[in-house]
């Protein structure tokens, strides 16, 4: 032991790591400049990014908000900036934002109708709260049901009673089902309920509506379907498609997995038929070509037929996503449900679907996001989506020559909507997480 010249007997105090491995410099070295190739790549990308931002940032932030027309904007550029470059003429957004958001029907702020889509959207937020956040009181579901009728009333206008009478008939049909289901098997009672509903809509709708009108004589200015445009149109179609497609998709997915031959084949046929045709073709066929075959006096509402089609289309896609979720479940889950004595629907509702849907959330939400963006396809049937309004704005003599500003504005709004949906789906996934990691 004694031939060692030095033996450390005490612990050295902990030292700071070398300065080039921590903090900003450390991060940069580790992530951007860790090797020759990474360094070269980083420098190239930074250079490209820089050159884009050098042009884009001043374009956006030095843009003009106060002008009457594009030529006015250009005069201001010429007088304010000596470099002779063009910047964004945001004045077009300032002039026409109301039209792009609220459409031609509600966009004229002087007419003062814009509160209707705003209130309609507020109702939707209240209505979806109990669905999105299960901790909220259950009574809010009443608001959800009411919104189904308030929303179309606010958008299409007319007399409130004509919407409420449908609500009354649906509630009545619900009671009919409850009573009947005590006496016969549920398939028959569902059938009889539907018969009651159709007969009711046909015969009782007018008298009930008149009766309600005596008590609640509220009337709003009617808006022709074709005038509903801009983001009001996109959001309306999007909401309907999102809300209505999910239950339909679940039924289709279960149908395709079912052991019943006809149900299985019909579900498969429907899904494959719809998925095999582009949405734009479906919309075109339903609104234009159907008119060839139907008598001229049958007036298919263009917005309504688009809503139905987009719903069916989305349902077919989501059905396949859910089928993926169902297939991912181990068969032991179903066997366990069977051994507990649960019937088919109980097993689906309590054991299978909650798990399958949880797996399918990312896929379902991406379908929702894409359907919201697909609503811009309605331009094919002469409805004015936000992009259609942008085209019209660009064809006006004041704003002829504008391109990027309008598209940037529309893109921003779509991005905000889609991004919040995607964030919500991530929140939901975290919340429903049951595995341990």
């Amino acid at each position, binding site marked *: 032991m004694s031939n060692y010249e030095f033996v450390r007997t005490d612990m050295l105090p902990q030292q700071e790591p070398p300065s080039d491995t921590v903090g900003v410099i450390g991060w940069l070295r580790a992530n951007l400049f860790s090797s020759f190739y990474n360094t070269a790549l980083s420098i190239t990308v930074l250079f490209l990014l820089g050159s884009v931002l050098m042009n884009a940032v001043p374009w956006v932030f030095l843009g003009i908000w106060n002008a009457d027309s*594009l*030529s006015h904007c*250009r005069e201001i550029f010429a007088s304010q900036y000596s470099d002779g470059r*063009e910047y964004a003429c945001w004045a077009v957004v300032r*002039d*026409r934002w109301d*039209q792009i958001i609220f459409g*031609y*029907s509600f*966009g*004229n702020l*002087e007419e003062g109708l814009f509160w209707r889509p705003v209130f309609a959207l507020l109702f939707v937020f209240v209505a979806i709260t109990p669905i999105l956040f299960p901790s909220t009181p259950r009574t809010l579901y009443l608001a959800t049901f009411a919104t189904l009728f308030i929303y*179309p009333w606010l958008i*299409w206008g*007319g007399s409130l009673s*004509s*919407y409420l009478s*449908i609500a009354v008939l649906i509630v009545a049909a619900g009671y009919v089902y409850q009573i009947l289901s005590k006496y016969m098997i549920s398939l028959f009672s569902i059938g009889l309920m539907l018969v009651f509903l*159709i007969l009711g*809509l*046909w015969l009782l*709708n007018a008298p009930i*509506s008149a009766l309600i009108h005596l008590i609640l004589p509220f009337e709003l200015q009617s808006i*022709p379907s*074709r005038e509903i445009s801009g983001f009001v149109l996109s959001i309306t179609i999007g909401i309907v498609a999102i809300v209505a497609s999910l239950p339909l998709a679940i039924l289709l997915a279960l149908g395709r997995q079912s052991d019943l031959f006809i149900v299985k084949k019909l579900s498969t046929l429907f899904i494959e038929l719809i998925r095999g045709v582009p949405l734009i073709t479906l919309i*075109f066929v339903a609104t*234009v*070509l159907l*008119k*060839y075959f*139907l*008598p*001229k*006096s*049958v*007036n*298919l*509402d263009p917005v*309504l037929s688009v809503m139905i089609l987009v719903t069916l289309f989305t349902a077919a896609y989501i059905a396949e996503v859910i089928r993926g979720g169902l297939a991912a479940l181990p068969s032991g889950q179903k066997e366990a449900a069977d051994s507990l004595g649960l019937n088919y629907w109980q097993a689906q509702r309590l054991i299978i679907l909650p798990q399958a849907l949880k797996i399918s959330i990312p896929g379902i939400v991406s379908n929702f996001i894409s359907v919201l963006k697909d609503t811009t396809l309605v*331009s*094919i*049937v*002469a409805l*004015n989506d936000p992009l*259609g*309004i942008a*085209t*019209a*704005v*660009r*064809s*006006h*003599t004041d704003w*002829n*020559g504008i*391109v990027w500003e309008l598209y940037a504005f529309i893109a921003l709004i779509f991005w905000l909507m889609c991004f919040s949906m995607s964030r919500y789906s991530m929140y939901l996934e975290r919340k429903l997480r049951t595995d341990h990691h």
Partner: protein
Amino acid sequence: MRKTILLSAATVAGLATGAASADTLSDIKERGKLNCGVTEGTLGFSARDASGKHQGFDVEFCRALGAAIFDDADAVEYIELSSKNRFSGLSTGLVDVLYRTTTWTFSRDVDLKTSFVGINYYDGQGFMVPAELGVSSAKELEGATVCIETGTTTELNLADFFRTNNMSYEPLPVGSPTEAKALFIEGACDVYTTDASALAGVRASLKDPSAYVILPEVVSKEPLGPAVRHGDNAWEDVVRWTQNALVAAEEFGITQANVAELAKGGDNPEINRLLGAEGSLGEMLGLDADWAARAIAATGNYGEVFERTIGESTPIGLSRGLNALWTEGGLQYSQPFR
């Protein structure tokens, strides 16, 4: 909404209603509105303003029809059709008349079962060049580089024009009008070519319009006019003669300002017949005697409509050219009101 639900319920119940009548004019009168098919947005011809109202050259003709039928130029519903769905929109009855910058061609007239009833704008392919090029005629464009959209009639017309004039040119194929415009502004090509009416709009949208000139030559025929469905000649007559009334009004010097005065009757028998002071032309059409007077009062005569929407005093700045009256060397000509 309620009506739609009822109707869909009726369809579900299998209640087929009677076949539609081919009498468009009575359908319109019953509906109380004219359904007019216009473009989604074409500078000067049809576009919505900030309050959502339609404005433009084509729109004025729809308004004239509304005034002729209902004495209300606003009794018109405008339906914006794309170039893809305009003919199906017409044939399915979505619109009663198509005032949608539509070129009257043989195959459209014959094969597509549409009837063109007149020409409200004689268009044609034109050329725009930078002023500094110092060119005053398309015949001086020997060796020029031309930005040209591929797969269009414009491309074919261009080739024909240069071939017949024994000149060569350098085509620069592009995919879209926006791309063509960008390349032209950058100076990548010397010549920008498209329909003359659109050319004026593109010029007006440029940063410095005066730095560019539109050459006088028009090298193709693009007669734009209203179209209706085949087989309803009575309605066809209403559209044709309402447009003719506006043209004839210009010829006779009837304007928006003096039409009320002249409608009381005067020395010129043709004016009297047109405005309903004499004869029964309106009744023959199935309209009131003062149908033409109402249309002129609503929009002004052809010249007034032109000047107000696309003429030289507007930012679009189109000159009358071929669209001047036949008496002034143009092609606008109304058949006599007799």
